[in-house]
């Protein structure tokens, strides 16, 4: 059983599944990209199972049962993978927090200059206007 024995829609499913599974021999390639002997065998297996009417999910879990979660390119949403999925967002929140702090502290510097009386007056008026608006 080979890809070429599949019909058009089966081929589309084959492509999708083979590109979402990792080749275990050359680990940074998907099965679709790999020509390793094991990858060829596994691709035949995929073709067979597609012909047998298996869904993409069934084929992927077939592979996962034998080779472990590592074969799946997209890790599952599980507690063990929480750091993987949530980590980037945690880092983003920290980054935003730190950026705000930096921006705020740089704003303080101009106020440390000795203000002229005119500037002082404008500042007071501005403050007055703003506080009356919020009331």
């Amino acid at each position, binding site marked *: 059983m080979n890809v070429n024995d599949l019909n058009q829609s089966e081929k589309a499913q084959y492509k999708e599944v083979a590109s979402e599974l990792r080749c275990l021999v050359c680990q940074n390639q998907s099965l679709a990209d790999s020509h390793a002997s094991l990858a060829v065998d*596994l691709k035949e297996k995929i073709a067979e199972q597609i012909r047998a009417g298996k869904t993409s999910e069934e084929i992927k879990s077939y592979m*996962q049962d034998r*080779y472990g979660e590592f074969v799946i390119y997209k890790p599952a949403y599980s507690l063990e993978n929480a750091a993987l999925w949530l980590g980037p967002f945690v880092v983003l929140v920290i980054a935003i927090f730190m950026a705000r702090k930096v921006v705020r502290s740089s704003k303080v510097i101009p106020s440390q200059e000795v203000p002229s009386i005119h500037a002082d007056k404008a500042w007071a008026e501005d403050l007055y206007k703003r506080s009356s608006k919020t009331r």
Partner: protein
Amino acid sequence: MIKKRLRLYLPILVLLFLGVFLLRGLWLDPKKLPSALIGKSVPAAVLPVLSFQGSEAEAMQVADVRLLQRIDELNGQPWVLNVFASWCQACLIEHPHFLELAKQKKIRLVGLAYKDDLANTRRWLNQYGNPYDLILIDQNGQYGIELGVYGVPETFLMNSKNTIIHKQVGPVPTDYFQSMALPAIEASR
């Protein structure tokens, strides 16, 4: 003041924190994956047995993998399945260790000739010695897929209930039986 000093050291602390992970990464082998089959029964299959009688004796006998434990005096004992091939260079590294283990007769050794030409398998065994009590044949790698084999050699250890309790990818160390097999067997009791 303390806060300011802490800030000064923060980059160093972050760097050290990262360093610990990166350092650990240096000793991690990305080729070694945890087996999905640990704790599961050895996959069922009836496989041909390699015979040595005459060069034309193409494997006619067959063996049921799950019934191997029932044969002769090793009844119900743990056993080892070693996936090997004559084309596999790394297999020669571990081969002497299996020959030694076979001499001591501590555990049943079953070989699985993986995607190999049978004439080559026989020649290889004649040349380097045969440590196996029995050799099964997986000529098209189908049983290998069931076992999740992705690199030869691989060595599986089954307990007395045919459950896979240990898997070694790549050549086994000299003291495989003492350092890996025995602790796994003890732990599964």
